[in-house]
């Protein structure tokens, strides 16, 4: 049993880490923002935390908090101008942000070590820490979802105009969610930085961002379980296809395309979209009714 745990320990860690990232992405997707800034926030979080712990001797939790706050601040600054942009332009502008962060990381050698990366990073992130952050992230999203905020967000995802006419401040709302997404991604970055002894600028590029977007989309944006389910499937699946690099990519690509074609609302919609909605509604009503 112990051996099994040791053999798959990193896999379990990665499932939790990717799930946290998936909830960060979900916060933006669920408000109709296709943000590709995730890679940039992860990178920012990882470098901030590793820099503070290794070069300034800060304890891990302080470094992680600083990383999360730094990413939040950047999200706020970035969101102010970018959230005015229409859907695809917003997506591409956030992608540009992620790429600029990567280039900066490649050149800012005193902090990031450039392409050489940073090695011999102390391993502070263990399964327990990841589990705690994962649970907190899920709770955060759950609490938001089951509150007036969640109702406002679901409404504006559906149609922004009537939501605004009912008094929902769309811009502030999106900015707050974008900042919250930055916070979670920054925190996840800090955890990733201290997970595998080494980080480099290419760890958090376009590919990482796209995978992160795929988790909640594969799992289902309409459900709170979607992001975690998508992240878990996406993380475990390649382990079964260890035999060949290229076949793995082909099978992964084909399975993903098939999955979204059959279940465009994500894996969590498997039992039929209507059924899950009824269940959610029942949950919501009980929640409100039970004092």
């Amino acid at each position, binding site marked *: 049993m112990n051996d099994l745990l040791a053999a798959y320990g990193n896999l379990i860690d990665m499932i939790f880490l990717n799930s946290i990232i998936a909830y960060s992405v979900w916060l933006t997707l669920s408000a109709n923002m296709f943000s590709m800034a995730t890679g940039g926030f992860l990178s920012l979080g990882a470098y901030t935390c590793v820099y503070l712990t290794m070069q300034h001797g800060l304890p891990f939790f302080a470094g992680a908090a600083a990383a999360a706050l730094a990413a939040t601040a950047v999200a706020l600054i970035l969101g102010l101008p970018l959230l005015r942009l229409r859907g695809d332009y917003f997506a591409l502008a956030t992608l540009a942000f992620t790429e600029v962060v990567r280039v900066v990381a490649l050149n800012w050698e005193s902090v990031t070590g450039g392409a050489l990366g940073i090695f011999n990073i102390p391993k502070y992130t263990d399964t327990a820490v990841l589990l705690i952050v994962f649970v907190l992230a899920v709770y955060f999203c759950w609490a938001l979802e089951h509150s007036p905020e969640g109702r406002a967000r679901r409404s504006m995802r559906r149609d922004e105009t009537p939501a605004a006419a009912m008094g929902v401040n769309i811009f502030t709302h999106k900015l707050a969610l974008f900042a919250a997404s930055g916070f979670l991604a920054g925190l996840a970055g800090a955890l990733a930085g201290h997970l595998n002894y080494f980080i480099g600028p290419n760890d958090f590029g376009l590919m990482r961002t796209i995978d992160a*977007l795929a988790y909640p989309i594969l799992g289902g944006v309409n459900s709170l379980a979607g992001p975690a389910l998508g992240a878990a499937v996406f993380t475990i699946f390649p382990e079964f296809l260890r035999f060949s690099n290229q076949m793995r990519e082909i099978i992964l690509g084909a399975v993903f*395309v098939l999955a979204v074609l059959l279940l465009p609302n994500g894996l969590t919609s498997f039992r039929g979209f209507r059924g899950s909605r009824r269940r959610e509604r029942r949950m919501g009503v009980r929640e409100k009714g039970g004092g």
Partner: protein
Amino acid sequence: MTVLFQQLVNGFSLGATYAVFAIGFTMIFGVLNLLNMAHGAVFMWGAYIGLACVADLGLPLALAVPAAFVFSGLLSVSYEIVIFGPLRKKEAHRWIGLIASLAMARGLVALAQMIFGTHVVRYPTVGLLSGYMEMGGVRVHTLQIVIFGIAVLLMGALAFMLQRTRMGRAIRTVAFSPRVAELAGISVRNTAFATFFLAGALAGVAGVLLGLLFNAVSPFMGETILLKGLTVVILGGLGSVPGAMLGGLLLGVIEVFSVGYVSSAFRDAIGFGLVFVILLIKPSGLFGQTEAARA
């Protein structure tokens, strides 16, 4: 001065391939409102098919280019059949198409690795094209001129087709509004096929051109150019064909000049930084139409 002119030549020949690639990318967006992230994979397959014609079948280049054109066009149409068409029918959110096309691209890259190998390969040298002229220390290769010519020719043909032919009118009507098009008796489905075919065919030829020009064909070439294509369409305005042509040339020159006169280490940051600044100043791209015109 010599260096400046040499850099301009470098920039234009690089930019021409960007432009041919980006035109299809922006067309699919303009007509069908889709971001097709598998456009880079078509580009890469086009380059390999062209190469296979030349190297394995021994065909002349003049036949390899049309072969790549047709093959890539059909491959691109397969995206519509496999991904975008069914998703449109299911009224799925457009992100799903975006992510699904990325998955498709990854699969196609892996398939190319299996078939063609992971290493970089090259087109055989064509004697006729390997010459160059030198004017005041600036070298312009025959190949660069030919490629620039092909690029301009393709762009001109596309512009003519869009403006003057029935199919072009159909494409422009669907771009204006799919509902209006259906009322006018235009099949959105067939127009989507035509758009994907043209877009893919141009990307495939761009792949051959880039492979010829820079002596390198690899399974990963599509990923690099996709990022460039995204930059180009923002420079030119999403959905604008003339914008993509100008934007492509512009990006080529910007890249070369940022290497030449700023720093090669920040070349990509300058490209993306520019995207950023442009979007902040003009939220629909440098040459983009206003929103009312697109809606």
